[in-house]
């Protein structure tokens, strides 16, 4: 079951013993939670997705494209289901000095030289086509927002009686109330990771100067957050643990051997 931002703000305030917000406001705690969410996401790369954003679709004669704004790191880009080779500008300059003008089938991309958040396709697409490009990347979670309440409208069928009667008056009057809250943002990570973010928020709240500061307790929560962070980082390496090989075990596919001369031509043989 997903966990939501608003309830976590409430939970952190309850944990700090300040549900009345006399020391920390909901806004301040919300900022710490957002900070913890961003920190956990950035340092662990836990959020991954595969997408085909329209901003990367081929446009004839257009070389550079803007990456999704939530992107941290690219893991793989494909063009017509073929992986594009990630290159550096310096490599490309040696290989094809005219890469900034050559058009044709896209076979690679570079990220340096055109600014953060921009990629340059190699070669430049010759025609405008959508759906050719797919990108797999680590991303930043959605910005967390509070739930909002909105009042319901109410109507009276007639003035209420002087003395209320449940059987006669209540059916004639619609109750005034509030709508269900518009959903607060859900965390996109598994529920168990949310408590690490909660610990981060507690550490920051207890660390800041002013009433309520408790550096020892802050250090305790920071330790819990650091341990949680190590759990997530270990998880990334753990998912690859099954591939550990052994002598004699089937090996992964490798490229064919490079060609070489049958004799040491040009070298002195003693």
């Amino acid at each position, binding site marked *: 079951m997903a966990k939501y931002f608003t309830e976590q703000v409430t939970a952190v305030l309850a*944990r700090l*013993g300040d549900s009345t917000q006399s020391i920390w406001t909901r806004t301040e705690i919300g900022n710490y939670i957002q900070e913890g969410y961003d920190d956990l996401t950035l340092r662990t*790369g*836990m*959020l*991954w*997705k*595969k997408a085909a954003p329209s901003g990367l679709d081929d446009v004839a004669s257009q070389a550079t494209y803007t990456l999704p704004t939530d992107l941290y790191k690219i*893991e*793989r880009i*494909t063009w*017509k*289901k*073929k*992986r594009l080779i990630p290159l550096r500008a310096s490599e490309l300059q040696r290989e094809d000095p005219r890469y900034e003008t050559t058009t044709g089938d896209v076979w690679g991309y570079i990220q340096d030289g055109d600014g953060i958040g921009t990629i340059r396709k190699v070669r430049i697409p010759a025609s405008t086509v959508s759906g050719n490009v797919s990108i*797999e990347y*680590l991303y930043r979670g959605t910005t967390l927002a509070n739930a909002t309440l909105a009042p319901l409208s109410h109507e009276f069928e007639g003035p209420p009686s002087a003395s209320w009667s449940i059987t006669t008056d209540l059916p004639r009057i619609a109750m005034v109330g509030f709508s269900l809250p518009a959903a607060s943002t859900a965390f996109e990570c*598994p*529920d*168990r990771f949310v*408590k690490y973010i909660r610990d981060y928020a507690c550490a920051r709240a207890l660390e800041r100067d002013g009433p309520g500061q*408790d550096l*020892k*307790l802050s*250090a*305790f*929560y920071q*330790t*819990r957050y650091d*341990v949680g962070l190590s*759990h*997530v980082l270990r*998880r*990334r390496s*753990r*998912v*690859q*643990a*099954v*591939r550990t090989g052994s002598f004699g075990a*089937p090996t*992964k*596919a490798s*490229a064919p051997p490079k060609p070489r001369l049958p004799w040491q031509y040009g070298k002195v043989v003693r």
Partner: protein
Amino acid sequence: MDFSSLQTEVQRRAEDSGASVWSAVEVKAAINDGYEDISEHTEWYERSATVTTDATNNYYDLTNSSILSDTFLSPRAVFNSTTNRWLDMCDVRELDLSRVQWENNTGQPQKWFIRGLWHLGIWPKAVASLSFRHSAIPAALSASSDTPGFPQEFHFALVEYALADLFAQDGEPKKAEAHWRKYFDLAASLKAFVDNRQKIDRVGALG
């Protein structure tokens, strides 16, 4: 120790048998937090789930409620019930090197890989029923008679975790830290137990 006994032990050690400082709800939540944490740290809970694949997708989100919800921790093995073969684990780079447009290939799955932390990838793609062996987070303790699934020698880890959490909420960092360290030691012992449970029988001898 069952759930009820764990709660009683936490309250006894916190000198709050009358539940005047922490309510039963808070104690239960702290114990279940610890259960979740130790399960993630040690991966003692191993299970199998069925993943039904189709002929159009290479990737499956394992946190999807129709597959595993978000209890998935790490994979162990994948078995194709349609072909009766174990799938080989591979890396996306291997597929990119050996099969340029592998995402277009169709056929009974032969290889699997993980993308990110909870996306299962298969190659090639087809309608199949895969038995996915993995470690997971167990269901939270709820009934009084519920018992943690790992050996009872390590049940006190949940008590220590709960005490650390409750003392932290009460603004007592020294006590919280002391109990946290005990919890950590017990969790490390459980992890060593889980990782080395076959060690004795597999260790040979010279001669």
